[in-house]
């Protein structure tokens, strides 16, 4: 029973972090129909930024988060202006290859160039708050992750419902040309969507880095977050949260119960990819996505 609860808590915590990464992806997709495969690498850069501001510069946690968010804003603006804006209207492969080149080449190369691509640990810098429910250990990162997820989702919901720019973004997601006719600056909408995605990615990265260290391997977490995106439906933020929790729990239980059955283990690392294939074959639009059925 203790094992079950521990696995559930760990799975929930990992799932919430996957959901945070997935939300960034969903925001960009909703607003500009661009598939951002570089989201995982933005998370990795976020982790390294956390290391820089917390350990190398020595700021307190709130200042480091603010600095990381400021850097994320600048990064989002640069990425959108320099690489994605010239590709407006191009086929999906061009945009995807652009984000792949951005993530796997430029961001990873920068990580190696600036921080040496080494494994950096800074869990001591996050305040150590941990709870024990009986025999079950609740990690500090999970507490922060849940709080952060609630803040992020509430902020986004309020933003999209009440802020003028949020409404403009929803309008652009519906129909770009009509939004342009109504006087909405579509380029601003793209920029803001990228900024939001970079900020959520960087914050998730700081959290993940604080919990388990940063290295270029963190980028593959982003690939796993795509399982969350696909399961939840690529258009739905709420779906990303629900699917994140499901995938996190499933991965944790697979690691705990199925791993001893396989010969060498490692099932947890591969589990999200199996989820991707199953979702794509059975229900490509996910749990909460918009149905688009093509009978071919």
């Amino acid at each position: 029973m203790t094992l079950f609860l521990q696995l559930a808590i760990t799975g929930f915590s990992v799932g919430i972090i996957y959901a945070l990464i997935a939300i960034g992806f969903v925001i960009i997709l909703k607003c500009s129909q661009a598939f951002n495969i570089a989201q995982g690498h933005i998370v990795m850069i976020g982790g390294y930024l956390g290391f820089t501001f917390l350990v190398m510069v020595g700021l307190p946690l709130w200042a480091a988060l603010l600095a990381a968010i400021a850097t994320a804003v600048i990064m989002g603006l640069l990425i959108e202006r320099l690489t994605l804006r010239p590709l407006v209207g191009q086929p999906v492969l061009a945009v995807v290859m652009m984000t792949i080149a951005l993530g796997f080449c430029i961001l990873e190369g920068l990580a190696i160039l600036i921080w040496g691509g080494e494994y950096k640990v800074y869990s001591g810098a996050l305040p150590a708050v941990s709870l024990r429910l009986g025999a079950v250990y609740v990690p500090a990162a999970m507490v922060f992750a849940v709080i952060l997820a609630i803040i992020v989702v509430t902020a986004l919901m309020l933003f999209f419902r009440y802020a003028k720019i949020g409404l403009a973004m929803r309008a652009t997601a519906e129909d770009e040309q009509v939004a342009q006719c109504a006087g909405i600056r579509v380029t601003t909408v793209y920029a803001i969507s990228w900024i939001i995605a970079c900020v959520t990615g960087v914050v998730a990265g700081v959290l993940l880095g604080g919990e388990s260290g940063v290295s270029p391997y963190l980028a593959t977490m982003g690939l796993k977050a795509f399982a969350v995106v696909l399961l939840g439906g690529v258009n739905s933020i709420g779906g990303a949260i629900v699917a994140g929790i499901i995938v996190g729990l499933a991965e944790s239980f697979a690691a705990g119960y199925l791993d001893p059955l396989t010969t060498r283990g490692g099932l947890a690392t591969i589990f999200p990819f199996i989820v991707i294939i199953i979702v794509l074959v059975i229900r490509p639009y996910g749990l909460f996505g918009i149905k688009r059925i093509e009978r071919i």
Partner: protein
Amino acid sequence: MSLASGTFNQSYAQDMAILRTRTQRVLLFAFLAFLFTCPLFIGETWLTIMTMIGITVISVHGLNILTGYCGQISMGHSAFMAVGGYTSAILCAKLGFSFWAALPCAALFAGLVGLIFGLPSLRVKGFYLIMATISAYFIISWLVHFQLTGLTGGVFGLAAPKPEIFGMVLQSRASYFYLVMIIACLATVVAVNIVRSRVGRAFIAIRDNDLAAEVMGINIWAYKLLAFFIGCVFAGVAGSLLAHYYAWASIEAFPFLDSVWYLGMLIVGGMGSTTGAILGVVSLRLLDYLVTILAPILAAAFPAIAPQASASLSLIMRGLVIIVFLIFEPRGLAHGWERIKAYFRLWPFSH
């Protein structure tokens, strides 16, 4: 020097010919002569680079047929190369096959695995297919390296013996270079002719509008799976050659980033054309070589980043090249070459 200008065909054979003018035939012959005599006068480094170019050309031809002509974007290509490489190594090392029997078996098996992992293409397109093929890469990698360890040697890898012909082991670089180049030329001929056939036309129809192709009567399920099969057969051949080149089949020979590079090579070279595939491979491999020359210079100029200069510079340069081509020349070098030829053909007229 005369370029082909206008249509003066008088027979079907002339109409269907790949080489139309005498200049084209002379140039091709000169190029082939250069290719097959170059081990005599180029150094060891260039021989290695050319061998790698040859192996990559075979693999990228497969990806070109799958992605460039049939429109099924596949980011799992290096996994299928790994399947081919490991199969060939296992057949040679553990079952005692000769290389010439193992190569076709490895290619066919890689094609079958590609067929199975290409099944999602029947349900999804575009980005979703990319995600499915990325997952295919990681699942295959996990199966090969962590689950079937008895067969594949796990993370450690498997020794692959060098091929033998008429009792003579192909030990030297020059002999392996000839092997790779002969197979690469064969692969190019096969790829060009697949595209010119009925199958190729069906692929192009599926890429342009698969709904319309289905309406016209093309069985897109069969042709999509056939595209995966053909593309992965090429990948299997390339993977097998790679494994025997390194004499070791291991996880480092087939990393995930290679799939990204192959797609990048297609983008730089031009996606829907065979010459584009070759141009893309040559450009990016030469860029790699340029980076290995530049990295020590950079490391000397900025000693703070010396240890990681070459790794990061290689990644950043490749990324920049792909990004620049995507923004400024999305149809690749092949299209640029066509534009140059058209300009000279039509000069001094502008249209």
